[in-house]
């Protein structure tokens, strides 16, 4: 989707994910904690959308709702609408349970702890492939797993398939997880801080690899990140989230050229720069929410046909 022709829904591709007025409140011993308020965002087919915010902003809570993980917990109130394609997933746990790992999959920050330590990689590929096709034969599963590992440039697929996660380097584990996330050809991948615990050269290679693979398949991606440099390089559009609310919505070019929200401006200014000596000045206090959501030119949330 080119930034030159944004907005009007007839020009847009199919909407893969749409959140409308999503609010999440946790009931804790200390009382009610509002984690998300009125979150509205969408991801179109083939788009790479970034959700940017600091720790505690609620960005990972959004991922958990979309994967249907939060709804299974007690002491959580979720309201609004979350649509995967044309299906509403709030209140339909059986659908999201089926879709998870198949139509929507997840890439985690720490591959080593996201992969199961007690099974060889081969068993994990078989399990994921059976979610996509319960009748798949062992031979076919193995062949597809080998091909998927070759796609992520793991050149000794049989050795990797026979390994446990502790026998792999962190960069290799990250690639295995990317291969697993893509193998059932999902409509949507949620990538939560992908590669942020890797060394910078490994992270760059991993992100470029992921970007190439999803580009080939036109998979949609919801990137969750605090790293604005990564966002600038990979995202088509950005939603800035602050204390559970979306405060700004723009392309990376618009956002970095002219951040408008009183939270976004100091956030961008605080990033250390490779080409400048000195440390940026940041204000002691960050403003609250007097300001409404700022949508940059052309970016309006599309109106969805009712289900």
């Amino acid at each position, binding site marked *: 989707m080119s930034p030159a022709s944004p907005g009007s829904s007839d020009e847009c591709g199919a909407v893969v994910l749409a959140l409308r007025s999503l609010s999440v409140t946790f009931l804790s011993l200390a009382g009610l904690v509002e984690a998300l308020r009125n979150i509205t965002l969408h991801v179109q087919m083939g788009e790479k959308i970034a959700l940017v915010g600091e720790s505690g902003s609620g960005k990972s809570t959004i991922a958990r709702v979309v994967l249907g993980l939060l709804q299974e917990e007690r002491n959580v109130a979720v309201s609004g609408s979350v649509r995967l394609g044309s299906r509403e997933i709030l209140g339909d746990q059986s659908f999201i349970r089926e879709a998870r790992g198949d139509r929507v999959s997840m890439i985690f920050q720490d591959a080593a702890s996201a992969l199961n330590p007690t099974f060889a990689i081969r068993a994990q590929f078989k399990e994921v492939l059976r979610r996509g096709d319960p009748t798949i034969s062992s031979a076919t599963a193995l062949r597809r797993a080998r091909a998927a590992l070759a796609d992520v440039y793991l050149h000794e697929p049989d050795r990797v398939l026979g390994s446990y996660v502790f026998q792999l380097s962190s960069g290799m584990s990250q690639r295995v997880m990317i291969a697993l996330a893509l193998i059932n050809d999902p409509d949507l991948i949620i990538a939560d801080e992908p590669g942020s615990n890797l*060394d*910078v050269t490994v992270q760059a*290679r991993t992100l470029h690899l992921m970007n190439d693979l999803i580009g080939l398949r036109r998979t949609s991606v919801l990137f969750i990140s*605090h790293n604005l*440099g990564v966002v600038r*390089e990979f995202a088509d559009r950005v939603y800035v989230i602050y204390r559970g609310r979306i405060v700004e919505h723009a392309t990376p070019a618009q956002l970095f050229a002219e951040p408008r929200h009183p939270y976004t401006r100091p956030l961008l200014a*605080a990033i250390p*720069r490779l080409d400048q*000596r000195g440390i940026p000045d940041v204000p002691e206090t960050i403003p609250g929410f007097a300001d409404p959501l700022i949508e940059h030119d052309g970016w309006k949330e599309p109106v969805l046909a009712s289900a």
Partner: protein
Amino acid sequence: MSEAFLSVEGVTKRFRSAGGEVIALEYVSITIEHGECHAIIGESGSGKSTLGGLILGLFEPTSGSVRFKGEILGPHRPLRLKRAIQLIQQNPLSALNPRRTVGQSIRLALDVHAIGESAQRGNRVPELLGEVGLPADYALRSPRGLSGGERQSVAIARALACEPELIVLDEPTSALDVLVQARVLQLLMRIRHQRRLTYVFITHDLAVVRGIADRVSVFEKGRSVEIGPADAIFAAPQSAYTRRLLAAVPVVSDEEAKFRDRFRDTQVDAEEAKD
């Protein structure tokens, strides 16, 4: 000739592990000058934290020596040297005893090193908290109830209580959000100036290094591959490894991208294509 402030002379450090011996550092020599902010950069396994441990005197080098103003550093160093060289870690919770209040932790540092008259030490606690920008009533709080940035400020106050000459900072802001990171870096630079401190700043974040370092040592797989003034290294890195590190940094502006992409030469592309 006067003695170097801190000198690492031909240091090799090997560790025994289950799979045999690991060479963490191999024949490394660095001189740190009084008052400089010296960044040690490299990826995981480069040996940068091992070097930090040797400078703190936590363990002996396998061969070579580490000296602070001429005195040999190691596990048997006198208390005076433990006081003079302090550590700030990535995770301040592991540095602060969670069962003590902030004030108790700072007071203990004053007592252990017998800083000032015993009767005056109680007054030093609020002064030190003030120096790092925290209100005096934080003395009564537990480190568990503080934010990440506040905890790091407490860890800095406790290190300052020892009246150090050199501080080893091992990824001190890597776990912090970007706004908090900027505040903590500001604090660290102000304190260095006011107290004429020397910093050894260990990090993988090259943009932070550009912001604060006077000189830079680049480590790769236990070897020091490049050392020099930060201005020179960022203008024209000599080693292919440094260029590769610079080329991989995600950046946030077009000018910065232009700056970085000078390091994205064919050699880098060849490396990226390799598994």
